[in-house]
C-alpha cells in the first residue's frame, strides 16, 4: 500500500492528519509534484484520471482517489478511534458536518486561491472576480462557524471527527489568500487552537 500525494496541497494533508489520528504510520508516501504538473502526466492519469492527489494504491493494484474515499477505507480497516461516526445517526451527522465544512469552508478558500493565485495562472481559466466572491463567502462562513462552535467542543459534536480535519485544513488553506480567524471569533479560535495543538496537525 502507498499514497501518492503532494505535501503542500490541502487535500493530501486531510489524509495525513486522518492517518496520524488513527495511529497509522506505516504507509509510504510518494511525492507527485503539482508545481511541475506531474499530476497531468499519462502515468499519473492511469492511477487517477481526474489528475488529482492524493491517490491510495492498494496491494491488489486498486487505486482509490478522493481524500474522503481514502479516509473511509482506513476507517473500515482500522475502525478505532472512530473518526467518521459510531452508529447510523452519528455517521450521518458526521458526514453532514464534513460536507458542510467542504462546501462552506474548504471549497471557498480553495476557490479563492484557484481563481486569484499565480500558481494556477495558465492552468485553469481564472476569473478573479469569482475568486473574490469565494473569499468573501469564506470570511462570512467563518463568522457562522464561530456561532456553531458556541455550544460544542468539536464541529460535529463532543468528539473529534473527520469534520474537524476538513475544517482545519480549509481554514489553514485560507492563509494563501489572507483569510483568517478574526479576534472576536472566540469559539472558533478556541477550537482552532485545540485541533492545531494535536500532534496530527503537523502530519
Amino acid at each position: 500500500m502507498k499514497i501518492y500525494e503532494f505535501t503542500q496541497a490541502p487535500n493530501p494533508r486531510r489524509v495525513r492528519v486522518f492517518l496520524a489520528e488513527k495511529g497509522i504510520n506505516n504507509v509510504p508516501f510518494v511525492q507527485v509534484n503539482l508545481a511541475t504538473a506531474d499530476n497531468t502526466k499519462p502515468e499519473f492519469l492511469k492511477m487517477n484520471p481526474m489528475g488529482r492527489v492524493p491517490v491510495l494504491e492498494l496491494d491488489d493494484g486498486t487505486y482509490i482517489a478522493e481524500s474522503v474515499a481514502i479516509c473511509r477505507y482506513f476507517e473500515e480497516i482500522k475502525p478505532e478511534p472512530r473518526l467518521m461516526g459510531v452508529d447510523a445517526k452519528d455517521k450521518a451527522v458526521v458526514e453532514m458536518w464534513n460536507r458542510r465544512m467542504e462546501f462552506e469552508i474548504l471549497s471557498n478558500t480553495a476557490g479563492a486561491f484557484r481563481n486569484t493565485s499565480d500558481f494556477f495562472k495558465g492552468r485553469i481559466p481564472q476569473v478573479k472576480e469569482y475568486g473574490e466572491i469565494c473569499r468573501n463567502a469564506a470570511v462570512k462562513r467563518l463568522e457562522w462557524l464561530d456561532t456553531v462552535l458556541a455550544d460544542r467542543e468539536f464541529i460535529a459534536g463532543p468528539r473529534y471527527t473527520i469534520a474537524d480535519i476538513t475544517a482545519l485544513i480549509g481554514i489553514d488553506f485560507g492563509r494563501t489568500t489572507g483569510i483568517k480567524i478574526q479576534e472576536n471569533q472566540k469559539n472558533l479560535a478556541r477550537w482552532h487552537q485545540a485541533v492545531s495543538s494535536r500532534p496530527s496537525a503537523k502530519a
Partner: protein
Amino acid sequence: MKIYDFAFAPNPRRLRIFVAEKGLKIPLEQVDIFAGKNRTPEMLAKNPAGGLPVVELDDGSCLAESVAICRYLEGLHPEPNMVGKNSREQAVIEMWNRRIELGLFAAAGRAFQHTNELFKARIKQFPEYGATQREAAAQQLQWLDAQIGNKPFIAADRFTIADITAEVAVDFAAQAAGVAADPALKNLARWYESVSSRPSAKA
C-alpha cells in the same frame, strides 16, 4: 420520519431515487426554493445551510446533506446495498460518487447559478465564469463516457449511489445548464438509457 423536498431541485431528487431503490416510502413535504421557503427561520433552524433535502427524524432532530441522509438510510436498511459491501468497495463507490459530484454536478450547478435568470437577484453572477463552467461540464460528459467504457454501471457491477448522482447530474446539466450529452457519446448514452429506465428514475 419525513423529508423536506423540492421536486425541481437536483439534490432532493438524489434522495428520492435512493429511497425508491431501497423500496422505502417516506412522506415528502414540499419546500418551495423558488419562493425562498428554504430560508424561513423554521427551515434554517432545521438546516442552517439552507439547502434541501432535509430529513426530520421521529425524535425531532434533523439531518441535512443528501449523501449524509442516504448513509443514514443505508444504516437502517442495508439492502439493497448502495454504498459498498466491504472496505475496498466502499472506498471505490465513494470515490466515484465524489468524482461525479465535484466534476459534472458541481460544474453544471455553477453554470446554472452564474447564467440563469433565477439567480440574478440572489447572487452576484459572473456570466464569464458561468461559460467556463459550461465548458467544464461538457468536458466532464466526455470524460464520463470514456470512464464508463463498456461497464454496466459507474462504480460497481450493480447500481449504486454513484449511478444516482451521475443520472441526476446528467439531467441537471441538460435541463438547467444547457449542456446536453452528445448522442455520439455512446457509452454514456447506453448507461443513461439503462439507469433512466429504472422505476426509481421517476421518483
